């Protein structure tokens, strides 16, 4: 009974904590290095050997600089890019989740002819490298005459929609048919079943898919570069960063790029912190009996 205090359990807990620390260091260290670099001046960046914290080249005292951050924040491009990225990535995620979960409900839970071809057709849309489809996509976007941000949202469907559809199909399929049948016996329409049973039960998958799709859209570069070329005010963050990197004639402002990267990553982490609370573990416990 007295499980906690036995030496075997103590070793297990120490090993477990050690593993968590190891994982955290592995995942976070490169990002830490980016933050570290962002706090260095140009001369500090080129010190040999590289220092783990910003140090004064002469005295080796700890001396971080915030000049990179103020340069980034004073650049109007960057803040506008942040707003554009938020609009584009949020709309993309919502559209991909709505269209994707509808399609996934049909593909995962309903019987109809052409199920498999539909599944592969949706996947096929994302199997070409981005560069290859760029010219064709550009022609479509020009023909439709969408403004830049709308074109971005639609062109991002190419990689987000197949992703949300496939992941959600896999998760819906795993839910027992008995659930749907009993709901139908209770007089629920298929759509009610979908909304009040399938969606809540697969909440972890929905949130995860949404986050992954959001970040994929947030980070996209090639389409954003192409489709905002006519309307610079619609530039997203990755493009804005690329531009202020090129705007300076002297050496490339590596510290500023790292400062921007750190600034951009933090809101995403906050976003995850907010959403992950909604993924309540064990949500399905007891929901499926028999």
């Amino acid at each position: 009974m007295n499980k906690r205090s036995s030496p075997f359990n103590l070793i297990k807990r120490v090993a477990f904590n050690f593993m968590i620390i190891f994982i955290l260091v592995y995942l976070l260290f490169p990002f830490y290095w980016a933050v570290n670099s962002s706090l260095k001046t140009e001369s500090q960046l080129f010190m040999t050997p590289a220092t783990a914290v910003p140090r004064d080249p002469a005295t080796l005292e700890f001396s971080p600089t915030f000049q990179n951050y103020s340069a980034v924040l004073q650049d109007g491009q960057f803040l506008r890019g942040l707003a554009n990225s938020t609009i584009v990535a949020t709309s993309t995620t919502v559209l991909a989740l709505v269209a994707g979960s509808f399609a996934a409900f049909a593909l995962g839970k309903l019987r109809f002819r052409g199920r498999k071809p539909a599944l592969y057709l949706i996947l096929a849309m994302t199997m070409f490298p981005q560069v290859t489809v760029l010219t064709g996509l550009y022609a479509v976007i020009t023909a439709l005459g969408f403004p830049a941000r709308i074109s971005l949202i639609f062109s991002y469907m190419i990689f987000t929609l197949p992703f949300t559809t496939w992941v959600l199909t896999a998760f819906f399929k795993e839910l027992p048919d008995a659930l749907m049948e009993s709901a139908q016996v209770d007089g629920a329409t298929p759509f009610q079943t979908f909304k009040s049973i399938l969606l809540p039960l697969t909440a972890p998958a929905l949130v995860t898919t949404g986050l992954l799709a959001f970040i994929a859209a947030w980070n996209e570069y090639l389409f954003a570069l192409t489709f905002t070329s006519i309307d610079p005010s619609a530039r997203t963050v990755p493009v804005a960063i690329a531009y202020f990197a090129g705007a300076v004639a002297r050496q490339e402002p590596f510290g500023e790029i790292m400062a921007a990267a750190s600034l951009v990553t933090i809101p995403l982490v906050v976003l995850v912190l907010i959403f992950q609370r909604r993924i309540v573990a064990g949500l399905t416990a007891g929901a499926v009996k028999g």
Partner: protein
Amino acid sequence: MGSTNDSSAAKKKPSSRKARLSNLAKREERLALRLLLPALLIIALIAFYPLAQVFYTSFTDRVFASGQETNFVGFDNYRRLLSVHVTTLDPVLDEATGEIMIDADSGEKVYERPLDVLPREPRRFREVNQFDLFGNRYVIGATDPSFIQSVSNTVVFTVVSVFLELILGLAIALVVNSKFRFRGSMRAAMLVPWAVITVVSARMWEWMLAPSRVGMFNALFDRLGMIESPIAFLAAGTYQLPAMIAVDVWKTTPFMALLLLAGLQTMPEDIFEAAEIDGAGKIRQFFTITLPLLKPAMAVALIFRTLDALRVFDIFQVMLGQAQYSMASYNYFQLIGNRAMGLASAIGVIIFILIFGFAIAYIKMLGVDRNE
């Protein structure tokens, strides 16, 4: 099981039951189509034309961004990309003694020059690689050695990095799925690599892997006394591919881990409770319950990771440039550098087919789509 029940029921009351069933089936079919409509409309609007255009262009000699006339060339682009020829290289005999010539410096046999034995018609074949088998030396030649090399780079890159990501991602997902205090923050922290903008993360790694002690890795290895002189990770052929794999594994393990974690979290807990009561140990539970139940999540995670890995572009383009190609960065080079749009489209189609092959292999191997 369901079908036998249906048929026995249908025998009892053939007409009405059958009619009701087909009516239900029809309604289900109509509902399915309505639900698929938004996705299909988006595909029709956005994806249909570009994809069809890629297929069509791959059979032409179209030049990118030019008014030059486009001709239909059949399979020429594919032939140029995929022609491979393997042949033996004979050792060179010393004219005076009639014996096999030995290189004075290296002490190894001297072989014929690959260019002399590889075919020149219809196009000149160039050397991709040489290998020894059963005491003979062979040479692999191709009409487009850079492309063949890029295919091999990309496939090795994909297989190794996706495999490592699966193992690491699974380990991380299992750890985060167990209950501990900082689980929420851990889940946010583990997303960081995926959240760093890809192009920027490539620059960041380029900086960390710099060929002098300005770079973090060389500074660290030097501090630990592991190296005599700094390593040129991105310039030396032996380190290029491993460096790309390391960067990709770091960046995309969170993607794998999060999808697997979602799979773990949607598992009904009562199965584990039942197994616990039956006295199944944790390891046994993992192999008999967790892994089989995780298959669907694993299959989609593998498909999308493989799909991305086979199209890998940013890190090769930023960190290796023209030194080593991935298929997609070679594609970019042909399109933007050489303006060979027909050829670039053919590369796109080849990548497409390769991805399709991988996707089907995963689905068959993991048996996720069997209940048809």
